[in-house]
């Protein structure tokens, strides 16, 4: 394959990778940004969303498109409900202490994994895309659904950005993020905001999973990868900065493809993880974030 088609493929793949990264990280970015806690079970919420997409597709008659639409409703509702229970029974009781939250959500991660194994089984599950269209280029083919994922993620990101920047709800969230005490002083029900943010973060990652699972597959141990990738994106982008996360996702998505054209892909991953560690050490606010108060 010549240089140009090779580059074209790298760009296409990189764009899809960026969309997948941004989608999976969106929920974590929101929770991390507003609540300043790390939800280690974030990846498991993703896995549950994917599993539910598979389950719904299997149970709903009317073909993959119908299943896809139903899953887009069912998965965020179910995962959001689980997040609500988690927030009430777990996070609130430990008062959102950052360390205790990490330990508790590690525990939750194991619990969800085991339940998924018991309920859904251990084999990898393929989920049909709502439509199949192969874009035939002269040198290679490309999945039309992958481009749809890119569009969907742009729409979803714009939606979340609009809520945060332009609505009263967004204002309340931003105030809470800025300073919990001030928010309380202004009469903002901080607990309810936290609850809503945690549920919204989980619902978003579930939607991301429903969108992404047709280009991957559902498996009960799939959660670790989106978790680590989300961490990378959120940290490089800057905690709590949706814009930063998007830019980071694009940089990582595109550069990963290009680095691994020159080096081994494992080496590319090593470089990416080390980069995250070094960014955190030398620029804790991320590349695009503002320093925390």
């Amino acid at each position, binding site marked *: *394959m010549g240089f140009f*088609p*090779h580059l074209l*493929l*790298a760009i*296409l*793949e990189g764009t*899809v*990778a960026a969309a997948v990264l941004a989608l999976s990280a969106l929920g974590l970015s929101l929770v991390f940004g507003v609540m300043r806690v790390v939800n280690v079970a974030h990846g498991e919420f993703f896995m549950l969303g994917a599993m539910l997409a598979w389950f719904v597709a299997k149970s709903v008659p009317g073909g*993959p498109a119908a299943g896809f639409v139903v899953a887009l409703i069912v998965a965020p509702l179910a995962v959001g409900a689980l997040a609500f229970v988690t927030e009430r029974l777990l996070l609130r009781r430990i008062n959102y202490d950052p360390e205790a939250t990490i330990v508790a959500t590690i525990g939750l991660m194991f619990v969800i994994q*085991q339940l998924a*194994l018991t309920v859904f*089984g*251990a*084999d*990898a599950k*393929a*989920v*049909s*895309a709502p439509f199949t269209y*192969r874009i*035939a280029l002269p040198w*290679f*083919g*490309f*999945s039309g659904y992958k481009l749809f994922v890119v569009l969907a993620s742009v729409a979803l990101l714009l939606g979340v950005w609009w809520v945060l920047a332009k609505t009263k709800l967004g204002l309340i969230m931003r105030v809470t993020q800025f300073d919990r005490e001030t928010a309380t002083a202004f009469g903002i029900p901080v607990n309810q905001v936290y609850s809503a943010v945690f549920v919204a973060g989980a619902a978003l990652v579930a939607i991301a999973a429903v969108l992404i699972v047709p*280009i*991957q*597959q559902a*498996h*009960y*141990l*799939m959660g670790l*990868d989106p978790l680590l990738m989300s961490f990378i994106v959120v940290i490089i982008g800057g905690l709590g900065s949706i814009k930063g996360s998007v830019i980071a996702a694009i940089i990582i998505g595109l550069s990963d*493809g290009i680095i*691994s*054209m020159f080096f*081994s*892909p*494992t080496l590319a*991953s090593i470089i990416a993880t080390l980069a995250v560690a070094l960014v955190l050490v030398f620029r804790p606010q991320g590349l695009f974030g503002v320093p925390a108060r």
Partner: protein
Amino acid sequence: MSKRKLIVPDKTLISRRSALKLGGAGAAAALMGPGYVRYAQAQSSEPIRIGFQVHRTGIGAAYGKWYEQTTNAAVKLINEAGGISGRPIEIVPEDDATDPGRGAEVVEKFATQHKCDVAFGTLFSHVVMGSAPRAGELKIPYFVVSEGHHVASGKLNRYTFQPGITDVRSQVISMAPWIAKNLGKKVTMIFPDFAFGYDHRDYFSAAIKAQGGEVNALIPIPPTETSFSRYFAQIPADTEVIYHVMVGPAVLTFVKELGEFYGSNHPPLFGFIDSLEAVSLKSPGLEFLEGSYFWEAYPRYAGAKPTEADTFYRGKVGVDQYGASVSDPNDVSTYSHMFGCWETLYIIKQAMEAAGYKTTADRGKLIEAVEAITTIPEGNEHPQGDKIFNGKIHQVFGHQNITQVKNGVGELVYRTTIEEGMYEPEDDYSKMAL
């Protein structure tokens, strides 16, 4: 004082009880000491305990489920036919979480806590590697069903055997002649970037060269990878065959993306069914595999003329002619691996009976009896086919199958001879101390 009083009647109670139970022989036995009592009982009815190291959780869980189902079916059958030397088999399952650390602990537990006669059933190579040293030290015979080259390579020890399934080296080299003759001589290999993949890379490269062919590109894929299209761009244009072997859940994506990349116009594909064990070939996205070729140790699809033994085996394990569970056609088995559990159990039976195995003191005799096995005939005990066992490297050799996907099922196109998969032994375990 009072303590001593408590002990004395207790002791007499035991010997009286044993005397009652065993009659005259028991009374004599009781006089000869506790060791003899156990011996006498062992001879009559005490079950043979087989520790079953099973991947119930972790990355191997999809395989573990079927290994357990096959094992239980074989044990039921053996016990109905009178067990081993008249003693029933008792399976003692323990989950190893597909983790080498836990695997080693489980082997210790089999040997010392559960007092198992032998340990058995491990699939994933890293669990075998982590566990085998413990089995060797505790001197418990350890029968793995892993298809890794670890046993045959001489890295392990005298107590570890693989008598039920061929190893990856044998599988790989037996494929080369057919590929070179029927598909092409310029082969691009796509393989996982870890030990299992290296065995494919090294042994296949050498084997295809011996056939006058060459590997024109090596594309290792890291085990953590989730997206594959960019790797396909590395496949040279003059490639005549794409050889792919992938493991882990991301395989579905791999195959789907390969299809999207090439569409209907692609070089012939030759894959290892390991990629798609427990996955239906009719899964969404796999349509493009139509017409491609697979190595299968034991063809999942029974075909038009299955052997009697195959029909018998499927019936007992609960698998239909498409290799799926009879109760749920979407629940596809790991057909090319799980037969190894069945056949290994029959090897254990054969060797124990040949060795006159009675207690764990006879383990040395058992080891020698397994090493003495040479040819294994096809039949209900060995439904996959006849085999040759090499006692020096503790590894079995058998027929391999090449199937072609037609209408979503793999139809047999070639079955290798056993000799095509043979190689010179690298070591000799039988010279090691027992």
